[in-house]
């Protein structure tokens, strides 16, 4: 059996990659993908814990997370399309009208 | 209904607020003025029984009202007066209607807002003197901030915004310290906000010292004591006349009242420990205020600095911690409220006619406006403490008190009094007897033309100054009534201070 630590380590790595992606990359699409990565790392955690704890809550939670991630991306892409229509840019650094 | 069943203090406190609410529904400026006057006069009349049926044999709080207010936080609606606050309440209601009369013609824009501000202000001021619950006290204390800020900032003189903001920031800084002090004493004094209960506790010396300093700075800003006095001249000069009268007459008394009501009885050890430094600060304030007053050419600024000097007498008297000193201090609080308010009213009256406050522009008062000159003379004499006026009684008592403590204080006080006489006489001479053929201001024709527009005081102004004169002479000739009212409370205050643990102070 694969030890729990491996799963947690994998999820931690994915989480860190996701966080770094959001913070370091400037392309809005890539940032959205990194957000997905974070949520997937969470799912791995939940499922792994659920398996080792022999408790269904974790899997239940993972299914909800997947659903919500889909909604989030749908909304985010919708907003992104509106933004691109007005601004013609995918770069987060160009979003600089609001500051202070 | 017997008098005991009437909630006098609540009525006196909240009648002005009611008046302010009524004013909201009126538009006609004339009606607004009359209603404001009616309300303030009614308030004055209702406050008279507080003095007349006051039991002078006891130091206990009288006219006490106590209701649960915010049980979750253990806050009560708790009002009551002792001899000292009863006098202050009376002074406040007296000044109240005088302020309305003074602003009768002087305020022409936004009259409604002005009268509402004055009335709200009066409610807050009376509330401060009556509150026996710390949170209630703080609420009233802070409620004064908003209307006064507006009075200075909206209806003020040239640099009104600067002065209003300066006033606001100074006062706010004081309030913050006050709030911190209140919270600290709540915590140390058994989790209650009731002032009489908090007075009975004994606190450790370190705690007393810290709290005393926090309270002292908060109140010293209000007094204002040297070196926290710099907001006062600005605020006075730029405030409208009524604003100056409220400031000098009542607001400054809040500081000394706070010292009497909270600092001295609650922190007796710290009071004795800090008494000498405070007396020295007071002497500095007396001399410094007097010197600065001597150098002013702006009449209002001169009186403002004289306030710093006179309030120095008050704080000095209080911290002598003997009967003569404290009685003199409290009486001088009342006197200063009368005399300085009267002087500010005089400035307002002459300013309305000439649109200048520069002393060098006057000099014709005795000849052209003789009645005005007589009144100004009376108040000038009261201000310098001439025998027969109220100022004399207060100052002589403080002198007696000072002699009992240390003769050196007396020397400084005498110097202060001499300088006081100097600047007051300088002012009076400049206004009344200066060379009376000064060139008229540009654009107003010959001197005679200019003078022909300047009338002597009208009946309204006569009434204002007349009332002040009555008190000047009354206290000057027969102060016993006023001394009797405060007597028991002052005695009690001295016992409270003397309960200090002298060994712990000696150990420092």
């Amino acid at each position, binding site marked *: 059996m694969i030890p729990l630590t491996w799963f*947690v380590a994998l*999820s931690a790595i994915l*989480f860190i990659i996701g*966080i770094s992606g*959001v913070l370091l990359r400037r392309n*809005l699409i890539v*940032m*959205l993908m990194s*957000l997905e990565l974070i*949520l997937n*790392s*969470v799912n791995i*955690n*939940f499922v*792994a*814990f659920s398996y080792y*704890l022999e408790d*269904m809550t*974790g899997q*239940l*939670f993972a299914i*909800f997370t997947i659903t*919500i991630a889909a*909604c*989030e991306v749908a*909304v*985010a892409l*919708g*907003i992104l399309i*509106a*933004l691109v229509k*007005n*601004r013609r840019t995918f770069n*987060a650094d160009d*979003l600089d*009208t*609001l*500051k*202070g | 209904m017997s008098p005991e069943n009437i909630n006098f203090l609540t009525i006196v406190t909240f009648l002005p607020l009611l008046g302010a609410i009524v004013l909201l529904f009126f538009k006609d400026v004339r009606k607004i003025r009359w209603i404001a006057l009616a309300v303030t006069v009614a308030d004055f009349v209702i406050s008279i029984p507080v003095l007349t049926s006051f039991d002078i044999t006891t130091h206990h709080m009288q006219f006490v009202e106590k209701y649960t*207010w*915010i*049980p*979750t*936080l253990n806050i009560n609606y708790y009002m009551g007066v002792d001899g000292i606050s009863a006098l202050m309440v009376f002074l406040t209601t007296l000044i109240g209607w005088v302020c309305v009369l003074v602003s009768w013609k002087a305020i022409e824009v936004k009259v409604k*807002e002005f009268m509402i501000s004055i009335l709200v202000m009066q409610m807050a001021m009376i509330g401060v003197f009556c509150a026996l619950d710390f949170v209630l006290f703080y609420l009233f204390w802070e*409620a004064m901030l*908003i209307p006064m*800020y*507006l009075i200075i*900032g*909206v209806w003020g003189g040239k640099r009104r*915004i600067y002065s*209003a903001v300066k006033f606001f920031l100074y006062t706010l*800084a004081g309030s*913050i310290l006050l709030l*911190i002090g209140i*919270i*600290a004493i*709540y*915590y140390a004094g058994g989790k209650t906000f009731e002032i009489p209960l908090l007075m009975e506790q004994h606190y450790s010396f370190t705690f007393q010292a810290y709290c005393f300093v926090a309270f002292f700075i908060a109140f010293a800003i209000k007094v204002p004591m040297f070196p926290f006095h710099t907001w006062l001249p600005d605020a006075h000069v730029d405030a409208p006349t009524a604003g100056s009268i409220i400031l000098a007459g009542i607001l400054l008394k809040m500081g000394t009242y706070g010292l009497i009501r909270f600092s001295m009885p609650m922190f007796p050890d710290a009071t004795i420990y800090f008494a000498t430094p405070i007396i020295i600060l007071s002497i500095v304030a007396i001399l410094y205020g007097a010197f600065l007053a001597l150098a002013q050419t702006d009449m209002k600024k001169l009186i403002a600095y004289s306030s710093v000097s006179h309030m120095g007498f008050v704080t000095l008297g209080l911290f002598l911690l003997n009967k003569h000193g404290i009685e003199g201090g409290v009486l001088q609080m009342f006197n200063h409220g009368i005399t300085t308010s009267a002087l500010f009213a005089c400035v307002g009256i002459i300013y309305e006619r000439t649109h200048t406050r520069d002393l060098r522009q006057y000099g014709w008062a005795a000849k052209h406006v003789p009645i005005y000159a007589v009144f100004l003379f009376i108040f000038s004499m009261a201000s310098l403490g001439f025998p027969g006026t109220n100022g004399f009684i207060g100052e002589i008592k403080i002198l007696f008190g000072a002699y009992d403590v240390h003769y050196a204080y007396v020397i400084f006080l005498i110097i202060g009094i001499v300088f006081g006489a100097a600047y007051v006489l300088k002012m009076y001479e400049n206004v009344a007897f200066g060379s009376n053929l000064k060139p008229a201001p540009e654009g107003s024709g010959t001197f005679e033309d200019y003078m022909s527009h300047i009338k002597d005081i009208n009946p309204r102004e006569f009434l204002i100054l007349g009332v002040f004169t009555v008190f000047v002479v009354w206290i000057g000739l027969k102060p016993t009534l006023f001394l009797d009212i405060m007597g028991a409370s002052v005695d009690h205050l001295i016992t409270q201070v003397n309960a200090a643990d002298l060994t712990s102070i000696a150990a420092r």
Partner: protein
Amino acid sequence: MQELVFSIADVTAVVPEIIVGVSACLLLMVDLFVKEERKEIVGWLAILAIIFAGVGTVCLASVEARTVMAGMYVVDLYSALFKMTLYIGAIFTILLSLNYMKSEGVEYRGEYYALILFALTGMMCISSGADLLTIYLGIELMALPIYVLVGYIKKSPTSNEAAMKYVILGAFSSGILLYGVSLIYGYTGTTNLAGIAAGITASGTDSPVLTFGVLLLTVGLCFKVAGFPFHMWAPDAYEGAPTSITAFMAVGAKAAAFAGAVRIFMAALEPAFADWQAILIIVAVGSMFYGNITAITQTNIKRMLAYSSIGHAGYALLGLIAGTADGAASIIFYMFVYTFMNLGAFGVIILLRKCTGKGDMIDDYRGLAKNNRLVAVVMLIIMFSLAGIPPTAGFMGKFYIFMALIDQGMITLAVVSIVSTAIAAFFYIRIVLLMYMKEPEGEFDLVKSYSVYYVLAICIMAVIVLGVYPGAFMHLAKAAAIIM
């Protein structure tokens, strides 16, 4: 996990949520039959739905606290009070929007009200959630419609930009929060709040897994309440969003986030108090000072209120730091008061915004008092209340929080926060100064909208009444906090 038994009692307990959620769906359909120029009808219907839900909540609150839906959902006085706050926030937002959205020239105005109701459903789920899953779902159900609402003025680049920034940082914070939840689940084996508390008590608090989980969960929640240094989405989102939605975010979303935070920290993470208290102290002190100092330099009033809301979040967090029933009660009270203060402020902003561009800048308030006395007085009272000067409700809210802190002996923290209040007074007073003591440049042409007038009137009355007589509501809040 408990066995799933579905009973009628479970359904009655969530009637208010059902009313709001179903009405949202129905409104989408009703909208199809309403003419473009009469879309206000949809708004009024939404208000009606919220009022029905409110009646339902009041009826349920009179019953004793009970947990339903297999321990996922709790109906108690605490949730009822927060729901009342949220209803007021939502109703007033809709009232403020009726005229405003029309004047902004926004299309699809019917869906707008439906989205507010969806967001409200989410907020209600947060305040009643007894399980991290419910609370998480509530947070997302609240956030998704608000993302859309922030970007509702589709043609405005600032609105788009605000929405984009908000959605990215919002999703980011949800991710962090979820990772924390997953670690806590791994440590305790449950997502039920009571279960977590029991799990932590049983297994001890000195595991790095737990510490890390609590840390991430705290960070996620601080993002949601916009606490420093996790506040950066707030100023942009506040400034770019339509003003009515800014108000909704400032009152609804914030109150809901605090409802969730208090429940999570007090019910589930109580045994790990030491782990999160230190973080919250840093966040609270940072928020108070950063928010209030940065607000001083702002020129846009919406942005200024955003920074002020960061400061207020700091004050409210102090109640959590106290960690007592009084602390929780003070947060309930503060959020209630804060709702009225902020809605009033945004109401005035909306009144000023007739011609595009006017009303958003602080300088636009120059000389407002000259010809618009009533509006100026309203703004004056609200500004003093936000600054926490008595006798307004803002003071009582802060005072209660300070008292809760002091009862726990945290005097230094109380003193620090009082000092930050003084800094805050600075920029609120500046608006009063501009309104009353400067001469206006040009005429003011205020919007005439009775719905906004009603909102302002009620807000002012609430601010004064709660400032002078807060006893009754405080008592309720205390009772609610004790039951929880």
